Structure formats: C-alpha cells, structure tokens
C-alpha cells in the first residue's frame, strides 16, 4: 500500500496506528496544515486553553490508563509553554508524546517569526526528542517516538515538525519495523539474582516492601499483591505508588517519607530487609540518606539500570521489568516456602506486632473541629464518597499531602499527582485528561487556592466538553505549604504567601455556566460534597478550611525519617 498524502495526513495515519483516540492541543501558524488535516478527522482534538495544560492533560490521560497521552502545540511560544509538562512527565516517568510545529526548514536558524530552538530547549526535558527535517522520515520517527515513550522506563518524547514537512506530499508506506540499536530495554531480570532475592526474603526477620511508581507503570499490582501475601510482608507505597497495593489491603502500612506516617517511617528505619520495587530512593522518601534504613539489606528491582545504585547501593540489584520479574520472584518464593517459610515465624510475628503498635501510637487519622472545617476532615469526606474507587487528581501543596495520607485507593491509576516535579497547576488539567480517558469514572480535582488560580483558564475546557469533574478547592487563604515552612523554619515571617482576593466561586462558575458553591462550616461539608457528586456536570466546591493547619508528620529537610515532627513541634522519643 502506498499513496500520496501530505505530511500532516501521514502524521494522523501514524497516530491512528498508535491507537491515539484523542489529543490535547492548541493550534498556531505553523501547525495550520496539521489542524487542516484534523478537520473532520476521527481523532478527537481537545482544545485546552493553555499549552501547559495540554501537556498536563496528556499526562492525566496517560496516568489514568497507562496509554500514551498526546499533546500538540505550535512553534515558539506554544512549544515553550509545554516545557513544564514535559519535565513533569520526565520526573514521574509518564508516557506522553508531544508534537510541536516548527518554522519551515528553510527558515530554521533565521530568527523567523515564532521560531524557538525547541529541539535544543527540550533536550533535557524529554526522554528523547526529534526534529523531522524530511517528510520521508516522518512515519518512522512517529513510531519511534511512541515506542520510546511507552517502553522501558516510560517518559515524554517530543517530535518537532517544520511547517513544510506537514505540507510536503509523499508516498505513505506503513512502517513495518522500527530500529533503535542504542536503546536498551532490560526486562527479564537475572534468574540467579531473583532466586537469591527470594532466599533473602525468607531469611529476613523484619522485611518491608517499599513499592513505588514503577509498580503502577509496569501494571504489576496483582503481582505485588501476590508477593506481599506470599511472605506476609508489611508494605509501604510511595506518593507515586499509592494504589499499587490497595490502601485497604491488610498488609498496606501507608506512605513513607517527609509527610509519611509514623509507622511507615519507623518501619523503614527498623527493617532488616527493604524490598524496593520500582522506586528511586527519592530524597522526599529517604530524608537524610546516610540515616535511611540503617539496618536494612536492600533488594532493588527497577527497569532503569541507572536508578539501581544511584542513591543507595543495593545488596542485591535486579534490573528488569517488574511485570516480568515479580512472577519469577513469586515462583521462587513459593518454591522455597516449604523449606524456608517458617524459619523466622516468631520474629516476623513480633515485627508485625511492632508495626501495629506504631500504627496505633500515631495513626494517620483525620482531625475534626466543631467550628471550622479541618483539611483532614475534608479529605476524610472525599474518601468516604470515593470509597477507594474514584480518580483523584491533586495539585501541589498541603492539600496534596493530606489527600495522599487520608484518601484510600483500591486500584492503581486512581491517584494522580505531580510527584517528582511538584508542579502547581497540575491538578485541574490532569483531571481533564483523566476524565477524557475514563468517562465512566468519578473524577475529583483536589486543588489549593493557589494552584487552582494557576489553572483557571481550563474551566472553559471543562464546560466546553461537558466534563463532570468535581473541583474541590481546599481554600486555606495561603500558599499553605510555603506558609508552613515559614512558620516552622523562618520565625513565622509570612512573606508573599497570603492569597487575598480569591474570587467568588458561585459567580466564577456561574460565569462559565456551571455550579459553584462556597462552604465553611463542618456541618455543610458532607451534604455539599454529596451535592457536587450528584450533579451531572462539573461542580466547583470552594471549601474554606482552617488556615493555619500544618501537615504532620513532618521530617524537616535534612532530617532522618525517624526524626519526625508529629504535631506542633516536639520531636518523638525513639525506641532504640
């Protein structure tokens, strides 16, 4: 099959072959030929109101499904507006493909109108990027881009396409294979190492599974659950790994790290074996690295060899895809269970007792007040309505941490947040992507009063496409997370964190043609949330919460994770 078509049509053909059903974008001068080809094309184009949100929406699509999200933007300002989203996807290993227009090949390098060196600018913002100088390379490049984005350790890939390449006519022949000789994907894991890992896991007296975003990227939740149940190991899931093991699973302890639970951080500190699965020993998890898990041997399984040994040198490294490695590991564990399974039974029972004890001493429990809505109360109510089943897209700040602590996720891909980059303005647009990908799902966008105002333009997109997203603004009147640090570490000198002049949400939502409401008394909270969920369309609920609440536990920057501040400053006495 070979027929003459424009570069723009060829691109669309390739996108269809990649299974792209919708893309998030914003047009401009050099992408006119592409948008012309899109006219009446079956691929759905979602017009966002700012390109940054096209990238975040593509991430929301990818994070909620595992399929590659696609965004597109014009040259120059369109492309530069994508940058935050690209880095966000890079940090959290999210598969997205960005298509950007570029000035015509003859004009490249001439400071032409809306020319920017997109290829240069996005080099360090992507897993890989391409500049297509010839229409003949286009099909190959597009399929390479999708393969790179979704395989191995996923990530963002950008393809920069000059206007004349969109316009050029060429014979289109579907690509039958792609070849990236230097791109190595390690999948299987070393059989001997896997067997040794199984032995170490039975030998441990205080094992702890430390599961991260890699479990979700690999789609290995089921396998993780089997592993956890096989050896009855307590399990902590990182901010990126929440839902990797159901929050209601009896072996799930909670989230570790800077705002992790007391039990999770104490378990990390006292474990004699860390089974680290799809994690990268991020500083927000480990605290002071030299004091992190000091008694533990480490088994580290990750698909990216550069992560293994980067921050913590493992005693047993396994480079491979968790989806392939965990079944083998489980098989080895099952095989050894007969001979090794009961050797440390009483130590392990003590270990569980210790963990239950830590959980009871300082549970992650919501707090309530009769007069004001506590942020934790809000999250507990959202949790009640979600029942572990809703998609929750969070922005960045205190609300994000309370949501992560208090909302349960019974499945992977329900908790969507900007982990590695911590990009404010992520919550609302990612919810747009998630709702497009999962029209069947109840989608909450939990945002702060700061981050919400970074995504305001997308209210139009939500209405435009009739997305029934429930936008919950946790309104504390401050850039709360920054205010918390100023209170705790800068003598409460509150510098540039007050968010006055927040708009009236009834009028704001009303101006866009949907329903908004502000509440501030605890009694109003449950019915207002129920009303929001019942509403067939979008809903904007502005929840005024106690302004000076801080997120605890908290590990101060540079501290060891067992040196948590559990409540307004008073360090915890440590069991030695």
């Amino acid at each position, binding site marked *: 099959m070979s027929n003459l078509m424009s570069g723009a049509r060829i691109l669309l053909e390739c996108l*269809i072959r990649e299974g792209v059903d919708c893309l998030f974008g914003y047009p401009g001068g050099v992408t006119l030929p592409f948008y012309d080809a899109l006219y009446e094309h079956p691929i759905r184009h979602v017009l966002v109101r700012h390109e940054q949100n096209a990238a975040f929406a593509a991430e929301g699509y990818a994070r909620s499904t595992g399929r590659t999200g696609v965004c597109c933007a014009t040259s120059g300002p369109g492309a530069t507006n994508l940058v935050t989203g690209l880095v966000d996807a890079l940090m959290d290993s999210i598969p997205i493909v960005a298509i950007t227009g570029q000035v015509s090949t003859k004009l490249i390098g001439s400071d032409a109108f809306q020319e920017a060196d997109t290829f240069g600018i996005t080099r360090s913002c992507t897993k890989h990027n391409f500049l297509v100088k010839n229409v003949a390379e286009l099909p190959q490049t597009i*399929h390479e881009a999708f393969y790179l984005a979704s395989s191995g350790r996923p990530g963002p890939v950008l393809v920069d396409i000059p206007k004349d390449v969109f316009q050029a006519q060429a014979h289109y022949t579907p690509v039958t294979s792609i070849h990236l000789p*230097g791109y190595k994907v390690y999948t299987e894991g070393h059989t001997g190492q896997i067997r040794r890992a199984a032995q170490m896991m039975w030998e441990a007296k205080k094992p702890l599974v430390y599961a991260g975003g890699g479990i979700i990227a690999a789609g290995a939740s089921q396998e993780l659950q089997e592993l956890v149940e096989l050896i009855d190991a307590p399990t902590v899931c990182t901010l990126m790994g929440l839902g990797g093991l159901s929050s209601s699973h009896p072996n799930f302890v909670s989230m570790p790290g800077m705002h992790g639970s007391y039990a999770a951080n104490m378990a990390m500190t006292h474990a004699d074996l860390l089974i680290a699965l799809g994690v990268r020993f991020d500083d927000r998890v480990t605290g002071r690295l030299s004091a992190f898990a000091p008694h533990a041997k480490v088994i580290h399984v990750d698909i990216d060899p550069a992560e293994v040994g980067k921050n913590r040198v493992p005693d047993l490294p396994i480079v491979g895809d968790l989806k392939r490695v965990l079944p083998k590991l489980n098989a080895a564990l099952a095989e050894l269970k007969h001979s090794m399974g009961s050797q440390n039974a009483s130590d392990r029972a003590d270990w569980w007792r210790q963990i239950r004890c830590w959980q009871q001493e300082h549970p992650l429990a919501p707090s309530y007040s009769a007069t004001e809505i506590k942020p934790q109360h809000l999250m507990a109510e959202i949790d009640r309505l979600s029942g572990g089943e809703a998609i929750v897209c969070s922005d960045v700040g205190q609300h994000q941490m309370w949501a992560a602590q208090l909302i349960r996720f019974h499945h992977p891909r329900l908790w969507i947040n900007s982990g590695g980059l911590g990009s404010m303005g992520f919550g609302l647009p990612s919810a747009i992507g998630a709702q497009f990908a999962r029209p069947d799902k109840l989608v909450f966008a939990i945002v702060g009063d700061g981050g919400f105002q970074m995504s305001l333009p997308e209210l139009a997109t939500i209405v435009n496409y009739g997305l029934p997203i429930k936008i919950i603004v946790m309104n504390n009147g401050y850039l709360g997370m920054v205010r918390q640090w100023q209170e705790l570490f800068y003598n409460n000198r509150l510098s540039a964190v007050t968010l006055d002049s927040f708009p009236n949400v009834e009028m704001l939502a009303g101006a866009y043609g949907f329903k908004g409401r502000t509440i501030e008394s605890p009694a109003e909270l449950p019915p207002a949330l129920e009303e929001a969920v019942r509403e067939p369309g979008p809903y904007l609920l502005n929840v005024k919460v106690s302004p000076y609440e801080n997120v605890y536990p908290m590990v101060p920057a540079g501290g060891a994770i067992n040196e948590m501040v559990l409540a307004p400053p008073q360090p915890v006495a440590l069991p030695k």
Partner: protein
Amino acid sequence: MLQVISLLLENKPGALMRVTGLLSARGYNIESLTVARTLDPELSRMTIVVDVEPNLRKQVIKQMNKLVNVLQATDLTDASAVCRDMVLLRVRAPQENRTAILKEAEIFSARVVESSLEGFAIEATGDPEKLDEFIAVMRSYGEIEVTRSGMVAMSLENRKLRLSPPIPKGDEAVYSHIRNGVLNG
C-alpha cells in the same frame, strides 16, 4: 578526578549535544572531547575526558548508556587502553636555533610540517604527559602557538557490542474504532 570515557554513538544531529548536556547538567567540566566518524559512516567514536568524582563515575556511564543515540559508553579510566593526543605547534626559529629545535623535535618523534624563514610548524603525537614536556621544551626557544586535539583513546580489551534488534511494528487493525470515531472503544 579525570575520567576517560569512550563512546560509540549514532552520527545524528543533536547526538553530541545530548552527551555534553548530560555532563553540563551535572556541573561537570569537560577537559577535552574528540569526535569523528568510524569505519561505519553512520557511527561516531567520541573520547571525552571529564572531571568527575570517582564515586560518580559509574553513574555517568549508566546515564550515557541510557541515551538513545549512544550504542556503547565505556569507562577507560582504569582500563587497559591506549590514549593519544596530538599537538600542532608553531615556534619562531631564528637561524641560531633551527638545528637545536629540529634535534628536540626528533627526540620527541615530532614532524616538521611547515618550515619558513620565521620558523617551523611541528606536529607531535603521544600520550598527553609526553606532549606537555614537548611543549615545555619548545617554549624554551621563545614564543610558541599550540593547538591540541584532546585525547583519543582506544580500549585494548575486546568489548562485546550489544545492539537492540529491530522491533516489528504491530498490526493496526485493532484501531479501526478510532477511524470510526469512537473514543475509548
């Protein structure tokens, strides 16, 4: 500490930028960098000398191996390898010094590539320390001008080059629902 890295990479626009960008993003200073085509014109061989803390050397190699355009990154710092540098040097040589300069050049196995009444242009290759000495000696004859190539290195061990095979592109029939305009079919 200086690390010597040998890279085999695809000869593609931007490939060099990816390698140097990786180093500059981590604040490492590149001492020297050479790159040229290999027997296969689609590939380039690059030698980089870069200032990296010893405990981070492995990480740098891993990161380089992750670059899509890099087929192989090898740490030659402590490996068995030959390392050579080339220098082109212009020295002013009045009548009374000419024989002495030629003598010195011979000792260092350097070659005169251009000669004039004012002086010589000399080419020398060797390991970098030897060339440092050569340059010092020439300097004693007066003003000189120097261009160095930077190190080129070759491993003396046989290293297996592991390349990923082509991947067949799957069947598109499953995506007919998109053509029919059905979202999330």
